[in-house]
């Protein structure tokens, strides 16, 4: 029952009734070249006494198979990386929004208030003096907690990115690596994307505005956060983005298909970026 070699047998062939594990494997990995009246065949073969017993077993097994497949797929490390980077972004956004709110509120009572984490930390450590102060101090301590959580998640992202995609992480850093994988939907999906797509990942709005006509084509998407793009003169950023995305595409493929770390691509990229940046000086 391999996928290359479909048979004319149902998922229950060779499965003992009640052996959920074997049934789950057959449903996940099996295949058939023809559609047949499986309930009737199952009753004929003795897998079930009647059709209603067959459907009962089918229900139990398909639910178990789907649940297991979901756990396996979501337990895959690149999927965990995607969840982590999204949680990181959420925590950061919440902390920023709350900081502004608290600073604005505190500013109405305290002329010294500033919109920064230093002030929030001071506020969180303060002894509240009245009911309003109590809320302010409580909110501030939650912001401090969120920022601590951001640090914890960032550490997790760094570890996971390193093990999921060592070449990408070496070239792009753990956060950008995680973002690229998240935008593509997984490492395998990223590895199948052409460099030109990776170059504009995260700039979909601009890209489709361009495809509809009128707007200029975007030069870069989320890879803008990379120093090689941002640190290059605006006129040459398109070239830098193209060079970087080309090497990122190669890195993603090595990470997905081999998983070994190969420092030489990074060196090639460095050389290429230096040449692009030298154009200005000449």
């Amino acid at each position, binding site marked *: *029952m391999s*996928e290359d070699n*479909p*048979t004319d*047998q*149902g*998922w229950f062939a060779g499965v003992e009734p009640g052996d959920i594990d074997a049934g789950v494997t*057959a*449903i*996940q990995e*099996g*295949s*058939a*070249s*023809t*559609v*047949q*009246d*499986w*309930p009737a065949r199952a009753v004929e073969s003795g897998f079930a006494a009647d059709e209603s017993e067959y*459907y*009962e077993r*089918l*229900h139990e097994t*398909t*639910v178990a*198979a*789907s*649940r297991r*497949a*979901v756990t396996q*797929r*979501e337990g895959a490390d690149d*999927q965990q990386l995607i969840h982590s980077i999204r949680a990181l972004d959420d925590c950061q956004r919440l902390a920023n929004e709350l900081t502004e709110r608290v600073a604005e509120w505190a500013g109405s009572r305290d002329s010294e208030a500033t919109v920064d984490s230093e002030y929030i930390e001071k506020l969180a450590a303060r002894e509240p003096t009245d009911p309003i102060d109590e809320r302010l101090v409580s909110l501030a301590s939650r912001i401090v907690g969120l920022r601590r959580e951001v640090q914890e998640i960032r550490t997790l992202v760094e570890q996971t990115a390193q093990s999921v995609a060592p070449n990408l992480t070496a070239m792009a850093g753990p956060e950008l690596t995680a973002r690229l994988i998240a935008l593509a939907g997984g490492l395998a999906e990223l590895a199948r994307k052409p460099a030109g797509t990776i170059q504009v990942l995260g700039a979909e709005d601009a890209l*489709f505005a361009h*495809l*509809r006509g009128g707007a200029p084509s975007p030069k870069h998407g989320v890879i803008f956060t990379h120093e090689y793009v941002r640190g290059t003169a605006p006129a040459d950023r398109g070239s830098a983005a193209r060079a970087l995305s080309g090497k990122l595409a190669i890195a993603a493929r090595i990470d997905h298909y081999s998983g070994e770390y190969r420092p030489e691509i990074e060196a090639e990229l460095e050389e290429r970026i230096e040449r692009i940046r030298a154009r200005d000086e000449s």
Partner: protein
Amino acid sequence: MSLPEGVQRREIDGDEGLATRGEPVYGEPTEDGWRRWDRSRSKLAVLLGRDVETGLNAESTVLYLGAASGTTVSHVADVAGPTYAVEFAPRPMRDLVGVAEARPNLFPLLKDARTPERYAHVVEPVDLIVQDVAIRGQGEVAVANKQFLRADGRLVLAIKARSEDVTRDPDEVFDDVLETIEAEYEIRYTDGLEPFHEDHLGVVAEPK
């Protein structure tokens, strides 16, 4: 034409609309064991609301392609017989498993509708295929899955123009997809699903 047995127009929470009997799934309003089948969340409900003959009834065996979190397929399983729900993405499948647990006639399958041989060892011949897959190649999916449809069965399909090509005119996309389907099916009904679902075409077809 009347509604299938098991689907009724009922007033729930002061609004009249379609409803089926079953365990609530997505926070829909309920009353006396009936739960609202929300047209803005289900393309099949739009067609049923227009009294389009879909072939859905208490005896029908159903293959549902693109079941997502199970919003529509839960109503289908409330009404129909054995219902096979194919969904490709793990995240919605997590919800779909929960929906299936409370419905003994609903069988969830984490499979790709583009490769039917990977579930042909599980799915039996069916009376009704409901297809709502948001991927490129929706016509090809309908053709590839025709093998599951009985000779007197029906295909009910929601074509999503944006999944084929976001930059093209939806009507051109619909024509292309219909042309692909017509190789294997007779088209019985087509109409837009506005205002409930933008840029979607509802199609009912029978196998040739």
